[in-house]
């Protein structure tokens, strides 16, 4: 697949390397001539010196035959414009933008960017997983739906320990999908399954119902 990467910084460089190793045809567009040269020396002739937000540069890059454009410069506005120009001028079917300010996620979606990756949110979620006192962890956002996969850990003092699933008032917009016991045994959360301390419940939920789900499962 022909993929264009805008921005040859750290993210762009490692992304390109990974895409190349998967056998894709990749072109990196980078404003800085020196960085462009470094990429050429290390990864071969796959970099183009130019402004990836400019239609002229994107035309030179052969953007009309690209199946995907990924904009990973450090500036949200540059990533937005690169994606919009490639979409509206060159009909690129899929555009992905890195965003630094999580507030921009809504705007980018509204403006037709297919996928946004908020580095700030990604880092926050990873740190959140490492904080043991937090009983709900985000595992995965299901793309193009409002749903997400979360994990809720049952703490030792939880009021729900010893209760059956059917006794809990789990929000209707969530689905419990799996119970993982301490020690690794896993079971389907049937109505009669009894919660134990240390259980990790994997559930599909909406962002809005997340807090109610946590309350239902931990009783607090």
């Amino acid at each position, binding site marked *: 697949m022909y993929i264009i990467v805008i921005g040859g910084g750290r993210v762009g460089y490692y992304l390109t390397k990974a895409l190349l190793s998967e056998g894709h045809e990749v072109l990196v567009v980078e404003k800085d001539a020196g960085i462009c040269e470094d990429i050429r020396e290390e990864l071969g002739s796959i970099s183009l010196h130019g402004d990836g*937000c400019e*239609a*002229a540069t994107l035309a030179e890059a052969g953007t009309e035959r690209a199946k995907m454009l990924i904009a990973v410069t450090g500036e*949200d506005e540059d990533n*937005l414009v690169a994606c*919009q120009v490639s979409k*509206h001028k060159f009909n690129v079917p899929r555009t992905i933008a890195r965003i630094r300010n999580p507030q921009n996620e*809504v*705007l980018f979606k*509204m403006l037709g960017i297919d996928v946004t990756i908020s580095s700030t949110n990604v880092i926050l979620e990873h740190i959140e997983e490492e904080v043991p006192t937090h009983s709900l962890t985000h595992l995965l956002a299901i793309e193009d739906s409002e749903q997400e996969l979360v994990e809720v850990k049952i703490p030792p003092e939880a009021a729900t320990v010893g209760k059956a699933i059917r006794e809990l008032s789990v929000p209707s917009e969530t689905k419990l999908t799996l119970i993982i016991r301490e020690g690794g045994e896993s079971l389907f959360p049937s109505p009669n399954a009894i919660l134990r301390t240390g259980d990790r419940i994997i559930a599909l939920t909406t962002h809005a119902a997340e807090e109610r789900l946590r309350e239902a499962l931990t009783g607090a």
Partner: protein
Amino acid sequence: MKIIIMGCGRVGAWLARLLDADGHQVTVLDIDAYSFRRLRFPGLLSDFKGTALVGNGIDQEALRKAGIEQTDVFFALTQGDNRNIMASQIARHIFKVPRVICRIYDPLRQEMYTTLGIEAISPTAIFAQMLKEKLES
């Protein structure tokens, strides 16, 4: 009218003073407070009496502080085309500002964003055309 001008460069400051002198309620937004000196340069125009705020025009919080929810007109006049484009789209799509005017130096991008519903002006194309006409007259 309530007017927000993002970018207090030569054009932004000049426009702010013109509109302020006409009695409009003008707020100028710039990331660098030093730029606001242009609002007081002595000379052809009277001093600016509106509001000058330090803030980033592509940050929705900063725009809210500048009163974007009540504004009638938003001008995007920073040096960066992409910054202007993004701020204009925030003003238009998130805050539903009735009139958004955006400077885009690159004539190609100006043309594209005009078709996407942004009132965009390219000084590059206009000035080049003016110079050409000067030569021909």
